[in-house]
């Protein structure tokens, strides 16, 4: 199996699903002819034609509304919202239209819709081009949130998201676009976490870029005699707490590492579920997140802001 970049894994998933299913369409700002600002989707328009892959006006609400309506009409739209920071502009359509349709229609029709978006800090893009959108949507029933950390998962989960009959927010961490890994033609199962490193002393549950930081931290910790189990949650809504609970049964210690503000994020949801269902297994549980303020631009500030490998290791050793 060949190694490929995360961005190309995304592109392959789109390409294969566009080829497989004529109802799949893909649109967004500067995604077709220019191939996207992160050079992810180049070539898809040439291959699948301008009726199925096209550039839109800078009209996020129209993009999301059009995606919703076209899904009611039988298409399986994939849209790109260039930066996750722009998702508030489409939130009405996602929350009040797409997420509710299946229920309100009494299951007449579900909305197979994928929103691809580039998220996350570390690229010096500043406070309004670096946010994680998960907390805005984690309390929205009817939406799935998928957050891959590797090219292989990105491809397999995007294929799964496109085939899923429900609205899926597919979050692509900007700092992962250039990482390389293997990817095949598999279709993953949404909602399953994965233990990516075994260890008996402490559980680190995280996602996206955090997985790479956690794995690096685990190496540091191992050198000091602490064996961390690292869980890549992969889907954040619904989140696979069963896998976390199983790990915590063994380690009794849990840190949830979230790239996102401390208050009100998905790490809180993981901790809450663990408290509700695994209280007896816990000796210690806490979160490591970004602080509660906007994302700074200046490199030393931004670096300090994001919980990286060192901070994770230190946090664990400091308990």
């Amino acid at each position, binding site marked *: 199996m060949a190694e490929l970049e995360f961005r190309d894994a995304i592109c392959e998933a789109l390409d294969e699903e566009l080829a497989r299913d004529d109802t799949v369409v893909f649109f967004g700002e500067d995604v077709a002819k220019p191939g996207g600002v992160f050079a992810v989707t180049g070539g898809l328009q040439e291959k699948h034609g301008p009726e199925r892959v096209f550039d839109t*006006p800078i009209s996020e609400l129209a993009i999301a509304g059009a995606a919703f*309506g076209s*899904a*009611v009409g039988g298409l399986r739209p994939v849209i790109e919202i260039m930066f996750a920071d722009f998702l508030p502009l489409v939130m009405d359509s996602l929350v009040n239209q797409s997420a509710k349709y299946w229920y309100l229609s009494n*299951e007449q029709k579900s909305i197979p819709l994928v929103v691809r978006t580039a998220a996350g800090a570390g690229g010096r893009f500043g406070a309004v081009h670096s946010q994680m959108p998960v907390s805005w949507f984690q309390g929205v029933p009817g939406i799935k949130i998928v957050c891959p950390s590797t090219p292989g998962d990105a491809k397999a989960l995007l294929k799964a998201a496109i085939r*899923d009959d429900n609205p899926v927010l597919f979050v692509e961490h900007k700092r992962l676009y250039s990482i390389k890994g293997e990817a095949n033609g598999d279709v993953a199962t949404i909602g399953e976490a994965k233990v990516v490193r075994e260890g008996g002393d402490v559980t680190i549950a995280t996602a996206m870029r955090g997985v790479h930081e956690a794995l690096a931290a685990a190496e540091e910790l191992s050198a000091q005699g602490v064996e961390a189990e690292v869980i890549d949650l992969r889907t954040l809504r619904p989140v696979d707490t069963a896998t976390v609970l199983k790990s915590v049964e063994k380690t009794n210690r849990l840190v949830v590492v979230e790239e996102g503000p401390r208050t009100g994020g998905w790490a809180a949801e993981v901790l809450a579920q663990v408290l509700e269902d695994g209280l007896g297994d816990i000796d210690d549980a806490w979160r490591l997140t970004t602080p509660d303020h906007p994302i700074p631009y200046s490199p030393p500030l931004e670096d300090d802001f994001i919980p990286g490998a060192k901070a994770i290791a230190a946090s664990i050793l400091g308990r």
Partner: protein
Amino acid sequence: MARETPAAGFTSPGAESQLFVDLYRRMRLIRRFEDSVQTLFQQGLVHGTTHLYSGQEAGAVGVCSVLGDDDRVAATYRGHGAALALGVETEGLMAELLGRATGVCKGRSGSMNVIDLDHRLMGCFSIVGGSIGAATGMALALKRTGGVAVAFFGDGTANQGYFPECLNFARVFDLPVVFVCENNRYGEFTPFEQVTGGAILDRPRILGIHAETIDGNDVWTVRHTAAAAVERARAGEGPQFIESLTYRFVGHSRSDPGAYRAPGELDEWRKRDPLTVTRAGLGDRYGVSAEALDEIDESVEQELAAAVEAASNAPFPEPGPVREFKGG
């Protein structure tokens, strides 16, 4: 579920007469349906809030009369008229408003969010502007099948972001969608001129969208305008816009004393009640007698009484597990 052919022409005078008699019947059904809803609301049997279509019937009935099987409609919280015009079952709609298990959405949606895909109603959208986004997207799908999407919405909606974004979007991709702006002079309690710069009609026009303002209380005008618009949209000429001037005879929603209305305005509009206009037109144009129309009115009363009776006797849904997602 009766569906008209999408043609605007008629094979014979008799057919035309019969068609408009049918449309009259639907308008009458809507009016009396809304009257019933009002009563049931006051009796505490319809809950929350309701937005009635009384006075605007010619709009939905005229527009929907030209739609074919492949076409789809997005309506608003003021959507009973569009629903009934599309052939949504009277009883099922009433049962929905009464919150019953036999409602078209099994009591889940209520008055403001009715969906009935079998009857081409992609939904009633209770976010102002939502119907515009929905129909624009539907048009993207229908482009493949020759269908046309219709969005209903009001004058006040012309100031909401969905409107300009989606009109432009539809224009850029020349989507088969007909935007029907039902200008009833008010958004809730606020006169539209007070919050709207310029004329609504100019907004689609300058985008290159064919647009016209019509008498929305004359079902002949509405039907003919809609037929031409749908035909153009279907022929690939891109989005179409109709500003349909009308007036609602009742409050915006539940408790609305209507203090904002200009003095005498309601009375003036009542003279142009679409039911009165249609009755007169049926007599003048086709010699349909008042007695024949009274019979229709009577049959509407019976249909409605039966629907209300059946819906009122239907069971409430049982709370129980809900599938958050399709497929698990």
